């Protein structure tokens, strides 16, 4: 059944020669199983045929029966073994592919990874890889049997009695054609179905996530209609698909079953036997093995859909593996010092969409100084922050760290020099110590503690957490509060000793007490380092060495706070807004007496 649609799957299997070898064995074992089953039933027929002799020989009978037993046991034994081998191969292939994908992700631009998103990547790495199991483990042994069993059965029939073979040959091709019609992947219909399916899934996600809103507004009437609309569209798409495949499928249900073939053999057998063209034992053989070619196909009928799912998954895996890696320099340079500069940087996320996100941006951040980026949302602040650790390569101009173009550094070296502290703190499942130590594997306990102290995290770690540094933080740090997570990541950055810090300042802190602690931690992290901070609240950047105001991807102003306020431009306007916002407060209706 190696139809052309299998290429994405076989490409993936080819990535692991070991798995490929095992699958070949599984196919061979499946084939052996199919053939031995035929042989077993031939022996059963021979045993019974012996009884037709005038003087049946008990020993011949015993031999045939023994052969039959051996044949049948070998048949099921090798099929069973084929399944074991195929499953083993499939599990191994899963690990091979997942590690390949991990490698591809590590090599592609970080920005591309970020844009793909952890949800989509998880789906490919986990679900699509697992779906290959349908083809590799479940279908492979059948493929062997499908190839061998019909051939063995037809040969056996031909050798024993070619006339009965003629009868069977009337049916088998019809069944084969019918099956291949049904197994055909109706690509267009399938695409429609997949679209409808994705829409249903999106509607479900929206319905579930938006539920708090849904409930407080319209009791879900509007959103429920959106949900039911998507469900109905799916229902209609399926209706259309099944209507096209109905005939082929119904025909299969009628043809790919043993009875019609047996009926044909019986109907042919009566006149053949009457004219003594064939003998009764030969007819028995026909009845026993004539339907085996058909029986071999029937399990595949139920697997077809699963196999098509696998193929769709394989396409997505190949797509992810095909994303080109970020080019690494052939003779890498090491950064000297920690100055950061952007020179004439122009960048857009995709080439076909209008104005670039950044155009001709020049920013010089001398070693050990603090530069704040301010500007409205969408002005390009975060993009600048992403270009320094080379999440993307610039279109024009250059970004350099320590005097070296980031494209001339190995990307791991660059990331060792640049610590990223983003709004959404990243923690791994494990202990607090493990999380801090991520910044510098092999750091001593003393170093970890010192970093925690500097990040104002030591106190809460030893007093508030049950097991101190060995406390589990939970999945993505879920057992810690937002402020605590923030400080653990700052401790990690301090430990890493990176000389450049890119800081996306949080807009909101969870509670006032930890806000003060986080501020202390940031002050210690930035001390003596080169810092680029994306500032959302202007009050925090009044004192920095340099403020760069971005608007529409261009630098519109730069200077110190006092200069910029005096200049009465863009920054001065932002500052006025800031002052206004800080003085806002909700007021009660004073007539109410409490």
């Amino acid at each position, binding site marked *: 059944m190696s139809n052309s649609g299998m290429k994405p799957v076989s490409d993936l299997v080819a990535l692991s020669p070991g798995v490929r070898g095992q699958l070949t064995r599984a196919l061979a074992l499946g084939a052996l199983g199919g053939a031995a089953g035929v042989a077993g039933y031939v022996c059963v027929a021979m045993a019974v045929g012996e009884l037709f002799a005038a003087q049946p020989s008990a020993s011949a009978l015993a031999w045939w029966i023994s052969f039959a037993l051996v044949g049948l046991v070998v048949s099921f034994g090798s099929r*069973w073994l084929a399944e074991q081998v195929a499953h083993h191969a499939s*599990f191994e292939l899963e690990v091979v592919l997942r590690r390949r994908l991990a490698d591809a992700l590590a090599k592609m631009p970080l920005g591309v990874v970020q844009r793909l998103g952890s949800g989509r990547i998880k789906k490919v790495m986990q679900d699509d890889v697992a779906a290959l199991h349908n083809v590799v483990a479940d279908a492979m042994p059948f493929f062997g049997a499908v190839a061998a069993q019909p051939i063995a059965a037809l040969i056996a029939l031909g050798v024993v009695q070619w006339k009965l073979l003629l009868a069977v040959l009337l049916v088998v091709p019809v069944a084969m054609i019918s099956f291949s019609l049904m197994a055909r992947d109706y690509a267009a219909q399938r695409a429609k179905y997949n679209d409808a399916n994705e829409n249903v899934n999106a509607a479900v996600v929206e319905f579930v996530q938006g539920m708090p809103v849904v*409930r407080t507004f319209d009791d879900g009437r509007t959103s429920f209609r959106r949900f039911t609309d998507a*469900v109905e569209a799916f229902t209609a798409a399926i209706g259309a698909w099944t209507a096209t495949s109905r005939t082929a499928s119904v025909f299969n249900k009628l043809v790919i079953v043993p*009875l019609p073939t047996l009926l044909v053999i019986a109907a042919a057998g*009566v006149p053949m036997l009457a004219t003594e063209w064939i003998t009764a034992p030969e007819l028995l053989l026909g009845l026993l093995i004539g339907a085996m070619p058909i*029986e071999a196909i029937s399990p595949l009928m*139920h697997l077809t859909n699963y196999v098509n799912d696998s193929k769709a998954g394989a396409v997505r895996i190949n797509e992810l593996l095909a994303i080109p890696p970020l080019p690494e320099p052939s003779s890498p340079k090491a950064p000297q010092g920690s100055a950061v500069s952007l020179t004439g940087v122009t960048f857009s996320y995709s080439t076909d969409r209008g104005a670039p996100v950044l155009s001709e941006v020049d920013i010089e951040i001398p070693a050990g100084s603090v530069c704040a980026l301010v500007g409205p949302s969408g002005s390009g602040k975060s993009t600048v922050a992403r270009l320094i650790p080379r999440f993307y390569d610039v279109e024009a101009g250059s970004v350099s760290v320590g005097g070296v173009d980031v494209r001339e550094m190995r990307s791991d070296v660059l990331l060792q020099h640049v610590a990223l502290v983003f709004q959404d703190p990243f923690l791994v499942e494990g202990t607090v110590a493990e999380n801090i130590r991520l910044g510098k594997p092999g750091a001593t306990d003393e170093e970890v503690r010192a970093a925690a102290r500097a990040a104002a995290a030591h106190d809460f770690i030893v007093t508030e957490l049950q097991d101190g540094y060995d406390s589990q933080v939970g999945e993505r740090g879920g057992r810690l509060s937002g402020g605590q997570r923030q400080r653990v990541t700052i401790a*990690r950055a301090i430990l890493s000793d990176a000389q450049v810090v890119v800081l996306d300042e949080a807009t909101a802190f969870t509670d006032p007490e930890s806000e003060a602690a986080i501020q202390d931690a940031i002050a210690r992290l930035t001390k003596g380092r080169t810092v680029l901070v994306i500032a959302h609240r202007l009050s925090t950047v009044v004192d920095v060495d340099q403020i760069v105001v971005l608007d529409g991807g261009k630098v519109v102003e730069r200077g110190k706070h006092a200069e910029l306020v005096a200049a009465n431009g863009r920054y001065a306007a932002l500052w006025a807004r800031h002052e206004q916002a800080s003085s806002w407060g909700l007021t009660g209706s004073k007539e109410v007496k409490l």
Partner: protein
Amino acid sequence: MKRIRRLMMLAAGPYAPQFRATLRISVIASLVQAAAYAVFIPLLAALSAGRFGEAWSWVGALAALVVIEGALRVREGAFTYDYWHLVTGATRTRLGDRLRSMPQQELNRRAAGDLTTVVGSNVTSAATGISSFSTLFVQLVTVPALLGVVVLVVDWRLGLVLVAATIAAIPLVRKLRALSNAGFRRVDEANAGAASRIVEYVQGLPVFKATGQAGADSERLVSVFTHQQEANAVSNRSASVPVAALQFLVQVAVVALVTLGASFVLDARLSLPLLLAVVVTAARFAEPLGAAVTMTKLFEMSEAALSRIGSVLAVEPLPVRPGGTAPTSFDITFDKVGFTYDGRTSPVLHEVDLVVPQRSLTALVGPSGSGKTTVTKLITRFADPQSGVIRLGGVDVGSLEPAELLRHIAVVFQDVYLFDDTILANIAMGRPDATEEEIIAAARAANVHAFISRLPQGYRTRVGEIGSALSGGERQRISIARAILKDAPVVLLDEPTAALDTESEVVVQQAIDNLVRGKTVVVIAHRLSTVVGADQILVIDGGTVAQRGTHEELITRPGRYADMWSAQLRARDWQLPAQPASP
């Protein structure tokens, strides 16, 4: 078996009668099929005896049965074509209804991803289980059973061989089911672990790359992948033993039957034609049983899907106590309210007493985890408190249908959720029968009309199409317009400006001023400066009301509020230090 049948009927929902009819057809078709195989007995007897005329009539009978069975199978299969999609539609609608009516707490407890799987792929597997696997199962079980009976009638001694094999198979099948269930659980756990590590890997890639822990040899990944492979292998291996034993049993039974039959023929205790017939029949006995074993996994997949659907459909909505009348005034009172989240042991609220007078502003402040948000959640019947009573305008909220209750309340959350629809539709959600003028007026009051008018398609712009182009502040103002349109007497605000940058803050603040005018307002505030003008400030700490009063009263008293206030003044004046540039 009964459980699966019940679950299938539940999932078939309005199509249960058609499904039942299909199962009946399936049973009849299997009877016909067994009868067709049984015809081989007289057919082969007639052939062996040279009675070809009679043989022809048996062939005729066989042909008739084949045609009848075919016709029945077509009708059985029609369910797949006529109802499969309708079953998925109806089940999804019912699941959606359940999601809408189940307590919000229950909804939050189940991860969104899980629910998506239930409503998404589990529904299709369940429908396939109903439409295809159930009838396949009927066939694979009924036909061998009937053939066993036929052999028993022809020759009870040979029949006993098949009966003995069947009896021996029962514990093996039980064992197989138990083992594969245990295996499924183990594999599920390993999969969940791997999935979460993958997400972690993707999110932490910059850190991992910097420290050489990224790539094919990433220890954190390799260890979970290896564990996953082991779980798969162990589960597969343990289930494979009973499978092997079952297959072996079936083959041995066939050979034993032939051996025993042949010896009977040699001793002239059985006629040869009957043996022929029995052998042909026995071969038909073995094949479906073998197929049933290999299909176990598919059966179990749909069973698991059915169970998960059943568990969602089984969640009851919050009970509504009798005696509820629509509230006519809108003060809120908590009377000794105690609340513990499902699955936790320590209460999050403890004998909370509070009064929010009508048309006043009450602020809830306190450290994170103190129970502020729980207070607002309970007002909306997110869940019912275990003790005490919450009243709206003197009416116990537990006696109001959630929909009736929520008619009087507008909520503005910190995280705004907009639907992938037009901006107009998103605002209109606040009051589905509002006119376009009213919607625009609400947008004006929410300070977002000018922004919307600048969009190329104005109010008809779809949120999904401009998605990321909407800033947090714009999204927040659209959600406030929705709340203004609703014009509910009670407004709950959960840190609505916490996540905004300076630029958006001012306009959002003005929008909020328009929303809360003349309403009964409860606001959760982190920045104390925003609520100094509140009529009443409640300091929630450790699940109780630790302090209450106006700002002026509270800052003069030593206590939690005064501490928070001074901590916040310090934080507000904090600045990133300037650094002397290195030489």
